[in-house]
């Protein structure tokens, strides 16, 4: 019984330690999930007045390299996005992700409905929270 315990419990525990050690060298996609406030470099030039984005302007739900960006524009416009390295690409948005997870920013250009593309900088509105 002692041998069985050693083989079936002890060895796998050692294996787990090895797995945790091996995993330290694996890198995952940059974390962009959560709510983001947008700052525009200039007022978006829109056909009918100004753009109607409320803060937090972006809500991002992320699973690995794939993400879903929801605009807080009153219609909850949803954009599937893909993360390649530090570049986020979606239908209306292209941006670069910089910084460590806790002080991360997203900078790029966004095309809001009826507006000319405009440069933006996004900072986290709240700590990363993906369960909503």
């Amino acid at each position: 019984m002692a041998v069985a315990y050693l083989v079936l419990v002890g060895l796998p525990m050692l294996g787990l330690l090895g797995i945790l050690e091996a995993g330290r060298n694996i890198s995952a996609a940059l974390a962009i999930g959560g709510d983001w406030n947008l700052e525009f470099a200039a007022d978006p030039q829109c056909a009918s007045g100004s753009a109607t984005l409320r803060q937090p302007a972006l809500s991002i739900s992320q699973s690995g390299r794939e993400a879903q960006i929801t605009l807080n524009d009153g219609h909850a416009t949803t954009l599937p996005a893909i993360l390649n390295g530090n570049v986020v690409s979606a239908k209306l948005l292209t941006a670069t992700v910089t910084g460590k997870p806790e002080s991360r920013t997203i900078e790029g250009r966004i095309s809001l409905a009826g507006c000319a593309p405009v440069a933006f900088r996004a900072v986290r509105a709240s700590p990363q929270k993906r369960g909503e």
Partner: protein
Amino acid sequence: MPNLFHLVLQIAAILMAARVVGFLFQKINQPQVIGEMVAGILLGPSLLGWVAPGVSAALFPPQSLGYLNALSQIGLVVFMFVVGLALDPTELKGYGHAAVLTSHVSIVAPFCLGGLTALYLYPRLSDDGVTFSGFALFMGSAMSITAFPVLARILSERGLVRSRMGTLAIACAAVDDITGWCILAYIVVLVRVTQAGRPAWVTMSGSLLYVLTMIFVVRRFLPAFERAYRKRDRLSDNLVAVIVILLLASALATEWLGIHLLFGAFLMGAIMPKTPDFTRYLLHKFESVIVVLLLPLFFAFTGLRTRIGVGGGSAVWFYSALVIVVAITGKLGGSMLAARLSGMPWRDSAALGVLMNTRGLMELVILNIGLDIGVISPAMFSIMVLMALVTTFMTTPLLEWIYPSRLLQAQVNEIHKNVA
């Protein structure tokens, strides 16, 4: 102000779906609770949101889900108290090496395989906001959990509670539950400490102090409830309210310490006096409102966060199949092998493995915690929910295949003869 009309409409729709699907599942010899879990998934984006997005958006607008979540969380707090209440540590005594080996292997094997799978899934379904060790340990603990309440219900329905295999399964599931929740508490502390920037030793020492206080101080006063029950064969409403307040205080303590509400609720239930009739009385007092009203809300809330097969393409189906195979191999295979090495016949060992593989709603509880603290992504959450459904659904038919009713009846008759 909550939109009460919306909330009441949601509750009515959820209860109706839970009852109907639960009834249909009973018709195919599945426990009703599995049907209720499936009903929750059907109300979410995996089915209703997919075939009738307009109806789904009207019934479950995102801004209304906070109230539904709050109600389901209250239900879960009471449910975890009930799970702790039903757990009797004396069940662990007297099973010797077989229980120790089987229960430990049934945790370690799926845990290690979960960690191994994390090596493959971490770069694909996670991000650098979560450390590999947090992700791997969570995967391991989510793979190794057993649904103690569902397992007990299946054993009871099949008259196996007093068989050797049944008692061993209950003992192993109890060990699994306690170990699984301890590991999960550690992971939650690990992740939350990283997020909050609070030193780990503060949370760790606070948690240890809390557990010791509960076991060595609070538990001493709890037999007073049992004595009050003995006097009148019931508890007054005031005393039931005191139990609820103690339960909520314990839940708040663990939440404040940075673990999770549910751990406090579980521990409060676990340290309650375990005299069978007193436990039965309390279970009866709490269970009906949880089972009929609050758990279906939790299942629905889980379903609304689950997107089975929505987006991700064929890769997601491959990841799902991988997780399901790994979960079954680790839990069913590990428990079966350990039971066999402990001297149980192959048939009993296989049945034990099948029972231990039941993950049920305990898995959903853990997965929701994982999603809330951000240690798993929405896609990983959906994959693991699918795994929980498959492993729970397969239990009854597999058990019937391994232990046909005629063999079962013979064993039950023998148990009755021995008891007589």
